[in-house]
């Protein structure tokens, strides 16, 4: 089995606070891997280190065997590591057509092209059309993103990440904030991702985690608590304690 994404002894501190503690994760090629944990466990910090937004204090990150620890964000994307954000990170003034068009152009290496107009490359246009229709955005392609309903924006958020044709995709709570009526679209899209794309899912929603993931890692206070197949994790008394404990606090 090949490892798509791996962290080795990752450490991150904010001031005196250790938010990632000696974290070693291995995510297999083609896996549907979920990273779960209570609020404040440091899940998003891990994602930010994987994508290069934050630099770890020590430890290494390997993408398909290559050390990417020191690569800037955009270079990791070009190497096939793409993400969605927990809170939509889109371009309010741009249209879905422009947003996706840009992502496709960048991937194909036309992003720095300053002479040829947008929309004059048929290969780019074809991919844009394909993505827009897959994500039910064809009707809205000329609307400013800021005016789109939340569910559509969420679809666009995922579509942009897919437009980078990732080999490893990090989904940070893809269904967060989406109204029940539009949830189905999101889940269908996530479920229909090609099998050769490795997915790391960060999620609070346990129904979604257990229906989607074939492997689960549990993060508590920045450290790996346990890891295993879903049924194994579900039975784990430590995990139960963590989640029940949190529930009790929340109530």
């Amino acid at each position, binding site marked *: 089995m090949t490892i798509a994404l791996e962290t080795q002894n990752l450490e991150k501190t904010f001031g005196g606070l250790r938010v990632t503690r000696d974290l070693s994760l291995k995510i297999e090629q083609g896996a549907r891997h979920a990273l779960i944990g209570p609020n404040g466990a440091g899940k998003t910090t891990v994602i930010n280190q994987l*994508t290069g*937004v934050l630099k770890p204090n020590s430890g290494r990150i390997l993408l398909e065997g290559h050390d990417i620890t020191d690569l*800037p*964000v*955009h270079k990791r*994307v*070009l190497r096939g590591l*793409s*993400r969605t*954000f927990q809170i939509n*990170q*889109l*371009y*309010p*003034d*741009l249209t879905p*057509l*422009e*947003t996706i*068009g*840009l*992502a496709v*152009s*960048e*991937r194909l290496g*036309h*992003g*720095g*092209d*300053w*002479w*040829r*107009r*947008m*929309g*004059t490359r*048929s290969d780019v*246009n*074809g991919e*844009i*059309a*394909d993505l*827009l*229709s897959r994500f039910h955005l*064809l009707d809205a*392609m*000329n609307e400013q993103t800021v005016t789109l309903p939340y569910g559509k924006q969420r679809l666009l958020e995922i579509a*942009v*990440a897919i*437009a*980078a044709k990732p080999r490893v995709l990090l989904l940070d709570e893809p269904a967060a904030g989406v109204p029940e009526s539009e949830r189905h679209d999101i889940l269908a899209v996530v479920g229909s991702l090609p099998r050769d794309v490795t997915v790391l899912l960060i999620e609070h929603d346990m129904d979604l985690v257990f229906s989607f993931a074939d492997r689960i890692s549990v993060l508590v206070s920045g450290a790996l608590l346990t890891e295993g197949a879903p049924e194994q994790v579900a039975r784990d008394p430590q995990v139960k304690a963590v989640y029940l404990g949190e529930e009790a606090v929340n109530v």
Partner: protein
Amino acid sequence: MSAASDVGHHAQRQARWHFGEAAFWLVVLACGFLFPSRYLIMTDILRLALFAMSLDLILGYAGIVSLGHAAFFGVGAYAAGLLALHGIINEPVLALIAAGLAAMVLGFATSFLVIRGVDLTRLMVTLGIALLLEALAERFSNVTGGTDGLQGIEMQPILGAIPFDMFGKAGFFYSLAVLFVLFLLARRIVHSPFGLSLRAIKNNPLRAAAIGIPVNRRLIAIYTLAAFYAGIAGALFTQTTAIASLDVFAFDRSADLMLVLVIGGTGYLYGGLIGAVIFRMLQEVFSTITPQYWQFWIGLVLVVIVLVGRQRLHYGVLFLPNLLIKQIAGRKAVVSVPESDT
């Protein structure tokens, strides 16, 4: 129509020429024939328009604020002056390009300081660089002529054929040609994937990086290009007025530019052009009414624009101009007045 060609069609929607744009340029050209006694002020407006377009490229598209854009204007102005004065490059068009390149080099070198940091840092860094250059120009008065400026510049005929005349007719059409060519280039660039990536960076740098855009490299590129444009505007100033003095670096010049874009709006290329016309007209009108206090009225107009907010102005007072802009740009101008930007 297949989905792909449909997408292509829509993607190029903004890039297509609108009837209003052609009309705009025809009107500008017609002004050259209709007001032969006003060449000097009209040339001044063209220079300001080009200068403002330069700031629009970084402010309106990439979201980089600057209070020191006169640095590049000044370098272009002195470069053109020195080239002509010492007879290094006599032909004005070549000298113009050389002066632009000189400003471009400065732009590239300082871009590394400017792209890091937030808006306030950028304001201070750009302001500082312009002040620094002004002081340097004053210090090395043996080269720049100090407070007297460069004197005795004699311009050779354009392309060796068209001499500058004392009414400023040649200067006007020369400036107009330069403005138009650079406008076409800018228009081409902002509708390219590169131009679109700048808007993406302005909108959300985090997401821009997350789709693979090399954010810093793009910002350096556009900042350098904008410096080239500003340098050309400065060189035009020297070539059409045959003087270059320390005030080419003045803070007023950078500040005026902000005001021009506040009036005209940013992010659709015509903002600088329209803003320059309105700004100079206001200046003219107010200085005719109250020669001493015209700045008071200009100030008042600006305070009103910013306080009342462009949004409300758009619906009320500016309804007609907006209709015009829509004709020209094909969509409502994306306005980013720094003060009211969220």
